[in-house]
């Protein structure tokens, strides 16, 4: 038995199962609302099916040699790019974008697959000995891997999902050897965009940057370039903002703060907060949440599934979910640090990053911290492609854990 413990990361596994169970409970409740009964789509049953299929995949992937994963990376990547291109021509439209391919009776969402495929392919490239991400050429070349799917998905248009690809890049680079310093330098201009509206913030960041650059003893050229870049960004951003027409500015404002548009996209956030807030400490009880049962909460089975948890199980339920996620991600990071193989580690970090990004954005959206992006909550939101892909990722993590001494 102890031998088994060494082979299976139970913390990881059980936290995932716990999250899946929470998702199924919430789906059951929301499937039984007054109107869902008439609609014929039983999300709960379908999700159950995908879950079992996914768990089978976990079992299968667990036992395969990790080498296969490595060798399959580029092919998998190419295949998912191919599918993404197919979506452009044959995609079924839903929620304002063409995201799905119809395969028989199933709807496949290639963007989900592409997330894993990109992680694998990117990891394979940047784990090479001759790839030094601190040099410009390898950096740009590596960045291509996530950039291509980013473009294809943004075109659907599904900006939220596309952001995931941007988000996974830097952490994986960091894990693969990109120096913290360089990472900071890349991030600062983005921070500058927001800081440029406040003179003091701008000044402080410029000073820190200056001090930092001098201390780092980098080449003069680089120092000047970085400083200039940030000054330019800092000065032009406010000017550009003022040049925007009011309706364009409005669009951005509404995107960042949906509650300023209560009849449009703000409606969803408001209803979500009402649902969660009225759950209080203990929640209203299973299948007793009025916002859920009376369908005031939109997208209950996908984007706002966590609001169902919040309304019916209260703060206690919410914290349970957060704790389970925390356990899962910490275990994932520990796996990434404990494998022998550079590739495995980068893949593990990539998986953690992608799922963490989605989880944080989704939960934050339900309480109004982020705009509505359409990112599903891993293991809870309804969705066959996502569940399968995520469980595939879990299988890979378990596989790496199993083989951490050899690989």
């Amino acid at each position: 038995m102890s031998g088994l413990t060494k082979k299976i990361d139970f913390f990881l596994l059980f936290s995932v199962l716990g999250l899946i169970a929470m998702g199924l409970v919430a789906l059951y409740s929301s499937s039984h609302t007054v109107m869902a009964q008439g609609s014929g789509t039983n999300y709960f049953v379908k999700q159950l099916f995908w879950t079992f299929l996914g768990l089978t995949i976990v079992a299968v992937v667990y036992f395969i040699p990790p080498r296969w994963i490595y060798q399959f990376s580029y092919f998998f990547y190419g295949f998912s790019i191919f599918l993404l291109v197919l979506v452009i021509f044959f995609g079924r439209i839903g929620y304002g974008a063409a995201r799905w391919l119809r395969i028989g009776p199933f709807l496949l969402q290639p963007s989900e697959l592409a997330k894993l495929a990109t992680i694998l392919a990117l990891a394979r490239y940047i784990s090479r000995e001759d790839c030094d991400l601190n040099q410009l050429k390898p950096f740009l070349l590596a960045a291509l891997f996530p950039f291509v799917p980013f473009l294809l998905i943004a075109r659907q248009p599904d900006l939220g999902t596309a952001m995931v690809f941007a988000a996974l890049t830097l952490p994986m680079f960091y894990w693969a050897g990109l120096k913290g310093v360089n990472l900071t330098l890349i991030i600062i201009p983005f921070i500058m965009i927001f800081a440029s509206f406040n003179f003091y913030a701008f000044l402080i960041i410029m000073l820190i940057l200056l001090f930092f650059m001098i201390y780092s003893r980098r080449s003069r050229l680089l120092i000047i370039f970085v400083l200039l870049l940030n000054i330019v960004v800092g000065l032009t951003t406010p000017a550009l903002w003022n040049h925007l027409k009011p309706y364009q500015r409005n669009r951005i404002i509404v995107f960042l703060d949906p509650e300023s548009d209560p009849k449009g996209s703000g409606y969803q956030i408001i209803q979500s907060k009402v649902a969660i807030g009225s759950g209080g400490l203990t929640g209203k009880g299973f299948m007793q949440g009025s916002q859920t049962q009376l369908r005031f909460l939109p997208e209950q089975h996908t984007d706002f599934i966590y609001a169902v948890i919040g309304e019916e199980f209260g703060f206690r339920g919410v914290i349970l979910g957060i704790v389970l996620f925390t356990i899962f991600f910490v275990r994932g990071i520990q796996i990434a640090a404990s494998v022998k193989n550079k590739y495995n580690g980068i893949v593990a970090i990539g998986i953690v990053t992608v799922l963490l990004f989605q989880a944080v954005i989704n939960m934050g959206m339900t309480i109004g911290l982020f705009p509505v992006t359409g990112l599903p909550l891993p293991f809870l939101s309804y969705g066959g492609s996502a569940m399968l892909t995520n469980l595939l990722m879990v299988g890979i993590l378990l596989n790496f854990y199993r083989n951490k001494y050899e690989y």
Partner: protein
Amino acid sequence: MQFSSLEFKKNVFIVAVFVLFLILAMGFFRIQISRSSIYSRKSRQNSIRMITRMPVRGNIYDRDGRLIVDNRPAFSLYLVPAEVTAHTIQVISRLSGLSEKEIREKLRRSGRFQPVKIIRQVDMQTLTWIQENILDLPGVEWRTEPKRHYTRHSGLAHLLGTLGEVDERELEKFPDLEPGDVVGKKAIERRYDRQLRGRKGVQFVKVDALGRVVEEISGSQNAKPYPGEQLFLTIDLRLQAYADSLMEGKRGALVAIDPRTGDILTLLSKPDYDLSYFTGVVPRDIWNKLLNDPHHPLYDRAYQSSYPPGSTYKLVAAIAALNEHIITPSWTANCPGYFKLGRRIIRCWKPDGHGTQDLVHAIKNSCNVYFYKLGLLIGIDVWHKYSRMFHFGEKTGVELTNENPGLVPSRQWYEKVYGKGKWTRGMLANLAIGQGELLVTPLQMAQFVSILANRGTLVTPHLGLKLFDPITKKVTVIQPRRYRIPGIDSTVYAIVLRGMREVVDGGTGWRAGIYGIPVAGKTGTAQNPHGKSHAWFIGFAPFEHPEIAIAVLVENGGSGGGVAAPIAGAYLKRYFYYQGKYDYSIERILAEQRRKQDSLQVARQQAEADSVRQEN
């Protein structure tokens, strides 16, 4: 600590995970714990709605409890803006007669999930068709609402009045009314609206995100609607119906009052229309027909239109002259068939003249010349004073809307209109015989003759008899005002009334007579510049202890005695028949007798002729 070691990077990631989830947990804490009550309240507000429960409007009955108006269910069609499709709007536009643009405008003005009333009454056939095709018509809802139902299709329209949706002024005045409520707009329905409407109830319900009722919430916060009071009118529906038939095809009015109580037994105006058309949206062709009808059926001739009263008004001059001691009962004047006033000659209706008459005979024969002289004797100021004493020139205060007060000219009025010194005595002479600028309504004439019947007491005419609260069973009797016209001696009435008795007993109004019941009255033939004269008759019966007073007007009917008097007579007969005091079979017997007399007369004449021949 090596910054580039994996160990360090691992810790960076782990710290990042904790920080991110901590921030999230704080966010959840803030809305679930700190601000929980705010969101609980919003959650309740989301899903609970207050529905108004409409009360049943009170029925209207006649004095004996015969049903005149009650309520029947009708179906109204609503559209929910969030759910309608272009197809639905197209179909509903066709069914309702509203343009698609109008419908979209109505929908736009309402909340997305709030149903908007589009068609006020939809017939069963249309409703059934809609129900059959409901799958193709998303966003359509129907509700049962009560509409007024009338037991008669004519003879009631002006009296009862129509209902309609409340307007802004009414909304301001009555805070318990909401837009879309139906209230009485005219006449009785309006004047008694507050009592008839009842009080609304509330029902709290749970609704889903589309505003559909999911369940009713029971509890003490709900309130049942309180039904409207039942209204009993003073009208006798049988007599109203009979008057309707008597005036069929004519233009005019018939008003009958019980002088003892002021109860209006009949208030009829012809032509009129079927109120049933007005319970919903009036069909356009019907409305246009009514508007464009040259006989103006939408006007009520009993209280909204005013006419010159003609000879019926001579009584006012008579009373004025007697009471002011300007003449005595035995004062006589000669009528040669004409009257010379200045350079003008005005004629009496009898070309040969009536000869010398006293007041009673002048009234009986309705001599114009006598009253010309009388009018000039009493003067405009006295004439005006007595006109106002009998409440001409002002509303009677009956429970109707837009009552016409008529017009009683005065010295000041003439001076204002014609200029000082510009008006003539000829005008005064005209006034004395009820012509000229003088205008009265049939209702005012009925009120006048009631006062005469009472020998000087006015009991204000009213239509409301009593109200009945169906819940508390409380009966509220509507009390009229009763008061004596001051300053007129009873002997004056005695003289004038004797004249009125003579009018029916062998005078111009003989056709209003009834066998066995003494009737008194006055005829009038009011000339008017627009065509044939208006025919008037006013009267009361029985002469001692009168029970009923009547005024009949037939617009452009010609002779008062020839046209209006027989109608009054028929009505009075029917009234006494219902009272059990008149037997129609009398007429058969009388006709028999007459026939016998005639044949006897013929036989006698024949015999005389024969005997004369024989003698020769």
